């Protein structure tokens, strides 16, 4: 898997979210109705698997921020109103506590450009890498000039699944804004951006993305002269941000002139995930 058509990583934003729901998205029917709907959905979801007795209804009554709220906040921080986006990809592993919600579609109408938006899941840490790969492919075909990749995680599973599960310590998210080489970006495109977030302007060019399953004993890649390596939770345990951690670190490396290799290991499918960015010269 390679050849993301020289996409530039234009901007990176990362945010930690608290436990409280964010303001601004109260359902017209009231939170009581939403809590009842969440509970019914989860009860029906668990029953065929004999897991309904482990349902934590209290967690469903007072959930933390939903992926919709987290995504909205990240978009507001990452995308200027005069930067229309053509594609929005939402990647996550742990399901949202609004289980029936088409969150990517919801986020589409909040994002400048009303982009085509969809979600990738059920791939653990590899979902974000697949999302990045797909953004590259849409750019290659000319269908996308600017894209947003949202990588989200939330810490609550309102039931005991009966098997080991990795959950993050808190809700967190990372937004990457990527642009095709021919995009015309205003020089002052960031003039209106909210500066009260952990964000940075980047000069990195995506050169390859790969997800290779079936690697039983993976070796983490090592840094070399001119290349910094960021390892995800699959290589170096990260109990705080198991699904966003490798992307979270990306922001910390932006002051370097090094190329950057992000590497993670998805244990269920034994997939080695790599994304390589070269410093623009």
């Amino acid at each position, binding site marked *: 898997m390679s050849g993301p058509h020289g996409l530039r990583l234009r901007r990176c934003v990362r945010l930690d979210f608290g436990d409280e729901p964010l303001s601004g998205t109260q359902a*017209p029917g009231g939170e009581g109705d939403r809590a009842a709907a969440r509970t019914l959905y989860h009860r*029906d979801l668990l029953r065929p698997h004999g897991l309904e007795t482990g349902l934590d209804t209290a967690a469903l009554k007072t959930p933390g921020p939903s992926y919709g709220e987290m995504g909205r906040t990240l978009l507001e921080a990452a995308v200027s109103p005069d930067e229309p986006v053509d594609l929005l990809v939402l990647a996550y592993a*742990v399901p949202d506590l609004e289980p*029936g919600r*088409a969150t990517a579609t919801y986020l589409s*109408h909040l994002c400048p450009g009303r982009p085509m*938006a969809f979600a990738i899941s*059920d791939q653990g840490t590899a979902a974000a890498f697949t999302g990045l790969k797909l953004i590259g492919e849409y750019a290659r075909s000319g269908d996308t000039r600017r894209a947003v990749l949202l990588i989200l995680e939330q810490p609550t599973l309102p039931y005991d699944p009966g098997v080991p599960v990795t959950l993050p310590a808190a809700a967190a998210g990372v937004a990457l804004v990527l642009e095709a080489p021919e995009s015309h970006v205003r020089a002052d495109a960031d003039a209106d951006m909210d500066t009260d977030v952990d964000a940075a302007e980047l000069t990195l060019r995506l050169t390859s993305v790969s997800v290779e399953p079936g690697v039983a004993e993976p070796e983490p890649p090592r840094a070399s002269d001119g290349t910094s390596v960021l390892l995800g939770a699959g290589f170096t345990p990260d109990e705080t941000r198991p699904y966003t951690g490798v992307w979270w670190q990306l922001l910390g490396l932006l002051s370097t002139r090094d190329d950057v290799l992000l590497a993670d290991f998805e244990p269920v499918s034994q*997939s080695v995930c790599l994304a390589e960015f070269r410093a623009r010269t």
Partner: protein
Amino acid sequence: MTAITAVAAHLPDQRVPIEDLAAEFGLTPMQARVFRRYHKLGEVRMDPAGSLLDLLRAAVSGLDALRGQEHRVRYVIHARSFPVVTPYPLDPVRELCREFGLDHANVLAVGHHACATGLLALDVAGRLLTGDELALVLTGEKAFTADARTVPETTFFGEGAAACLVSAGQDGDRLLSYAVEQHGEYDEAVAGPADALAFQREYPDRLAETILAAVARAGLALAEIELILPHNVNAVCWQQVCRRLGYPAAQVVLENVAEYGHVFCADNLINYLTARRRGLLAPGTRYVMAAAGAGLGATYSAMVFAHHPPRRERP
């Protein structure tokens, strides 16, 4: 070039008349009659004792073209109407892959286009593939909760599944274009009753516009489209869409609405098999697959294909 190279489907044996479902949801006999007479919904299929894995397994078992080609399958993609259909981290698709010798494939789900997600998965699959790789796209879900059993005044969901092999080559039905229109303002976190009415009013127009957009992107005129393979939400919806388009309703494969109801994201592929069986697809036939996903946000999607029987099927 994205191409469909083989399709198989499974519908469970148990038939449930919509009158039974209507009674279960507290509808009056008159409301049930409206579903049968006007929406043309008759019955749905159910497998009460079966799991999602059982549904998907049955569909993949019928996919003869997969035999001997397992090593070429690079991606297995589950397209879902509902984002969450099993308790996390249980993963029936991964289990299915083990059973069918597909452990080496990348397994993932795509979603958030509701019942239009099946078309999204075809597009995503084609874009991910290179060379002679294949993707296995899976559609189909369990009607496990009220939201997954009925859309009030609109449809009843039936259980079933479809499996589809996608290639990046010239062999099979070629994807000529794909158009998507999304309306997140109808998400229930922000939408009110007035929005619900607006959505109902706009639905046929938006779906018709999306079909026209896909046809235009394919460089065709609507008159060159010989067939529409719809989602099975109900017949009234498609009659309205056809009026907007000026397109003959007789060229929309609607017969499965009465027999199967709305089988989540699998409708288009099930109707594809019906069209093949009825001899409606000749080499070169241009047809549309179209679907709308609604409920929590709205997505309208349409694809234009040109039918080319895979090499192994040609005389």
